[in-house]
């Protein structure tokens, strides 16, 4: 099954610790008038507090937050603490991701025992008054491993729940890596993660591998005796159903395009590759994808079959599934981070400054003299950046609606390799956020900018790009050099959300601004 980021729910468990006085008495911990001191009063008063608490917590829940049925930790002034209560709490406690606690005077120990028993992140809320600091400080003093939050404002609870959901998205990410040589790096993205074990250990992300030649063999119908790379084995080869799905995708792409420069039969192999990649992702329960470019290209089998993975990446990304070129698993996870915090659809590519040297903007791969001249004519062109790859798609601006697009080939000479072209010109002035993890996963580079113009909509190959201006080109570059080349962007300002996510993952945020 492919579990998209949008499908990931943060399970939030309200933990309600209450105390009930069984007798009439007054003293340093209890005071009041008349019936407020009578047995039975606390039963009703606690229900009021619980109702108010649950209403407030519900108001803090946004999309992707699942509020569970509450767990009650009830005691009386006999100071009872029965195992039966904990046994009842154990099921929901194990199931939850985050416990939001309500407690008052003389109940803090119950919340601490909950955290100690079940080792789940806990939070106190404004309703807990002084208990917030009491509980959180005690938990942190007992062990640095306890994750405890004390919120004095409800909006902080809402913000943190969003962050923890995004963290869960990252921690449950499974990436399908189609590889030819070593499973860590390809020849064109050595700045990708340098140790999968370290990334799994630190971030929880898992990597599932598939041999490139075995995959290529699957792109045609099964042959008697099994595929050449896996003789005698049953493999998920192309079926009639797969072919029909690929044909439908091809026809839909052609029909919806403002311009299609490719013949149907030239698009179809890329669509078949997409269908088969998704089939393998589904079989391996992966929600992210990457495969190499140069390593695959040099087998000459891409040429033989007549496809590139560009279309797969575009279609994945426009559906909220991270998918990166050139076996860049780092870029896959960076996309996932952006999807998780924004719910939007990412774009990725080679990312670099367009420097002003000797009064002119310097050319970079994919730029054209016409584009540079247009940029030079701008009043503010000192802090320009660009992102370039042929994996644009139709839902960059709006995750729910296709934008206008064109379909053009990647390979100039033979005309294969379907790519979707998106006109970034239409989005000039749009704020955007981009990011990339460092190769060791210890940092998350976070940049922001404003789109200036697009390029390559009418071009072929890898010439699709977007130009944007950043606050400070030099500072952005310096920070990016801690992360690497392929950055990924979404529209909107998500710097704060990404910073929160990085911190919750134990990753250092490196904000370009």
């Amino acid at each position, binding site marked *: 099954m492919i579990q998209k980021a949008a499908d990931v729910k943060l399970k939030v468990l309200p933990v309600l610790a209450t105390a009930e006085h069984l007798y009439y008495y007054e003293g340093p911990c209890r005071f009041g008038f008349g*019936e*407020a001191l009578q047995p039975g*009063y606390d039963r*009703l008063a*606690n*229900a009021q*507090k619980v109702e108010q608490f649950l209403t407030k917590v519900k108001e803090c829940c946004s999309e992707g937050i699942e509020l569970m049925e509450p767990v009650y930790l009830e005691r009386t002034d006999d100071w009872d603490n029965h195992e039966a209560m904990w046994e009842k709490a154990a099921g929901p406690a194990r199931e939850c991701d985050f416990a939001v606690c309500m407690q008052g005077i003389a109940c803090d120990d119950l919340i601490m025992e909950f955290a100690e028993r079940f080792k789940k992140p806990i939070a106190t809320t404004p*309703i807990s*008054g002084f208990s917030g600091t009491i509980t959180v400080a005690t938990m942190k003093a007992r062990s640095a491993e306890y994750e405890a939050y004390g919120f004095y404002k409800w909006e902080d609870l809402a913000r943190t729940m969003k962050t923890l959901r995004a963290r869960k998205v990252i921690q449950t990410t499974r990436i399908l890596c189609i590889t030819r040589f070593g499973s860590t790096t390809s020849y064109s993205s050595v700045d990708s993660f340098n140790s999968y074990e370290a990334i799994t250990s630190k971030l929880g992300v898992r990597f599932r591998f598939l041999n490139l030649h075995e995959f290529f063999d699957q792109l045609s119908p099964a042959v008697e005796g099994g595929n050449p790379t896996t003789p005698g084995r049953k493999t998920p080869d192309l079926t009639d159903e797969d072919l029909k799905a690929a044909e439908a995708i091809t026809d839909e792409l052609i029909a919806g395009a403002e311009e299609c420069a490719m013949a149907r039969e030239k698009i179809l192999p890329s669509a078949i590759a997409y269908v088969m990649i998704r089939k393998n992702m589904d079989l391996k329960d992966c929600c992210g994808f990457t495969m190499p470019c140069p390593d695959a290209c040099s087998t000459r089998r891409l040429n033989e079959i007549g496809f590139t993975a560009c279309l797969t990446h575009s279609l994945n990304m426009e559906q909220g599934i991270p998918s990166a070129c050139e076996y860049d698993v780092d870029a896959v996870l960076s996309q996932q981070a952006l999807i998780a915090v924004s719910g939007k659809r990412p774009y990725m590519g080679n990312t670099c400054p367009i420097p002003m040297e000797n009064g002119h903007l310097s050319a970079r791969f994919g730029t054209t003299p016409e584009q540079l001249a247009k940029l030079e004519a701008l009043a503010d062109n000192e802090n320009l950046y660009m992102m370039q790859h042929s994996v644009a798609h139709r839902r960059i601006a709006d995750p729910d609606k296709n934008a206008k697009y064109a379909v053009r080939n990647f390979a100039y000479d033979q005309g294969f390799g379907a790519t979707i072209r998106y006109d970034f010109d239409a989005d000039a002035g749009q704020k955007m956020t981009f990011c990339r993890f460092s190769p060791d996963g210890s940092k998350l580079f976070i940049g922001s900018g404003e789109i200036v113009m697009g390029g390559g909509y009418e071009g072929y190959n890898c010439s699709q790009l977007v130009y944007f201006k950043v606050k400070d080109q030099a500072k952005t570059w310096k920070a990016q050099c801690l992360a690497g080349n392929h950055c990924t962007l979404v529209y909107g300002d998500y710097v704060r959300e990404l910073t929160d996510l990085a911190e919750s993952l134990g990753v250092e945020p490196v904000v370009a601004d």
Partner: protein
Amino acid sequence: MADTEQIKQLIVSSKRLAAADMAEIKAALPLTKAFFADKLRCYVLHKYMLDPDMELPENFSELTDLSLSRSMRISPELVKEFDLAKSCDGASSAMAKKVLLFMAIQRELGIELPAIESARITSLADLAELAWNEMLTASAWEGKLKA
């Protein structure tokens, strides 16, 4: 001084009127649900020092805030502000006022209101419904109620 005297008088007369409402509930034979709901409404409003003949909000929490604002001589908006400063057990004065009302109703009618449902009451009609349902199974009311 005049203000203090006025408040004292209001408290005394409200208590008296509330007691009379409750006495009517107890004296009715059979006690119909409609009569009970009407008299319980008067009882609550009198306890809250509010005039049942006035135009009043339906919402129970708003009524509670209005009552607090009367007794504290501040606007209902300020009551909400004031309530942010809670006691060390996390209960607000509006919560306490509601619970004290429930305690009085329980005592007067010989019933025990279910806690969770009592916290979800949004109108006086809800309160009457909840209390009536408890009275239906209470020994003190056996044979005295008529739907």
